[in-house]
């Protein structure tokens, strides 16, 4: 007989949804970049200095790792927390690693407006990429314990959601049945996302990271049709009539 001693692993893999800032460069001119970014950093909030930033280079620009270097250095010197280059057919892992950066595919993500973005900028910004319509996910089968459903847009569930099940949507969540599992709306930071359900018996509800566990749900709304929204940092419960 050999005794089997279970060794505790020294590492653990965890999946995590992270918010990244994508900085699109329409020029590689170091002086121009320095001027505009230092000005933005002054009136922009803390987020630009702390948030991990992915550089997305405009497709009109000619690039190679030589002409990218000054732009990257400029951004670094300004304290921008660069982590990666957006991967395109022109930018590969080698180019990025020469610059001390990783690569990231932006294909799977969704754009979220930055609240601290100056309003005037909206008119000049390239709006074509924001007009892309994100599909609503409709779930007609019961969502069972242990199952996880993710929607890049809204999610509509027409069957019960069991304890131990998890709904995650970048947009709103609607459950036209009993919600007993977890519902996380606005998982990419959209604080205007809402949760609607026919019977609120959730283990946890969350909007843009602000959550309430079952224990903290108001008794008046338990098992009732409810509409949840975020007001400031607080979860707001409204009875659905």
């Amino acid at each position, binding site marked *: 007989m050999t005794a089997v001693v279970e060794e505790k692993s020294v590492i653990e893999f965890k999946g995590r949804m992270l918010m990244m800032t994508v900085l699109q460069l329409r020029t590689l001119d170091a002086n121009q970049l320095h001027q505009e970014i230092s000005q933005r950093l002054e009136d922009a909030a803390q987020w630009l200095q702390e948030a991990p930033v992915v550089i997305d280079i405009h497709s009109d620009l000619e690039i190679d790792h030589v002409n990218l270097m000054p732009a990257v250095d400029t951004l670094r010197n300004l304290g921008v927390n660069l982590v990666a280059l957006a991967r395109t057919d022109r930018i590969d892992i080698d180019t990025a690693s020469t610059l001390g950066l990783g690569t990231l595919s932006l294909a799977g993500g969704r754009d979220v407006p930055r609240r601290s973005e100056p309003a005037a900028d909206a008119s000049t910004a390239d709006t074509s990429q924001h007009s892309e319509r994100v599909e609503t996910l409709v779930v007609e*089968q*019961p*969502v*069972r*314990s*242990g*199952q996880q459903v993710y929607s890049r847009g809204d999610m509509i569930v027409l*069957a*019960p959601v*069991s*304890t*131990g*099940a998890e709904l995650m949507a970048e947009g709103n969540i609607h459950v036209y049945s*009993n919600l*007993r599992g977890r519902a996380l709306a606005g998982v990419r930071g959209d604080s205007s996302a809402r949760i609607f359900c026919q019977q609120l018996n959730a283990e946890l509800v969350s909007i843009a990271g602000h959550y309430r566990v079952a224990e903290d749900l108001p008794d008046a709304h338990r098992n009732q049709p409810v509409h949840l929204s975020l007001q400031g940092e607080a979860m707001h419960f409204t009875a659905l009539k």
Partner: protein
Amino acid sequence: MTKIVVVTSGKGGVGKTTTSAALATGLALRGFKTTVIDFDVGLRNLDLIMGCERRVVYDLVNVINGDANIKQALIKDKKVDNLFILPASQTRDKDALTQEGVEGVFRALREDMQMDYIICDSPAGIEKGALMAAYFADEAVVVTNPEVSSVRDSDRMIGILASKTRHAEEGKGDIPARLLLTRYSPERVEKGEMLSVEDVQEILAIELLGVVPESQAVLNASNAGSPVILDTDSDAGQAYSDAVARFLGDQLPHRFTTVNKKGLFGRLFGG
């Protein structure tokens, strides 16, 4: 056309083996050629419930490994015609179950043995043994006790059935899964100590195949090595007979779900 049915639950001790034995015996009694397979490799039990533990020579793993062919390994039931048992290996672990191996066993049962039904008694848990028992199934019977942890585990299992079967992987959708509520005690439901049939159905949202009352007859049957469905005088035996009838498409009202008020006579003689 051979039908493969998995009897599963997630949680242990809820009555999967009792149900597998009863269902297989009930189908065989109705003339269907039926094999019941114990997938609980390492924790063999079905042979005891079926009363054939002294006749085990080869087991499921032997057939998978090619040490024996299906004819050699199948144990023919002594009480019921058309009924065969394929026991689990007690000395091996669940890694001995391979997808190709299990598929080969089913093929042999279908083509060589011409079975009508194959009942797979799943082990507890959601590990390899349970997944192998369910993978090739055409239909599932989910055994649940009327208490929260059992219901939650069954819910998880139903979710797994919806994605981890060959049926689902080939894009043919979910396999039909029906609920068998066992160890039901209407008295305790009335006292609020147990979930009611309605509560469980509301949570699991699948068709109800039957309700088997908590019964001494089940324990007696296990001890005697005779499937409880053969005890036709017992409430549990009758409940299983009803469930088999419903399994085959009959419409029967559910029994044993309400408290049987004892009359004076019943009280005097202890019912």
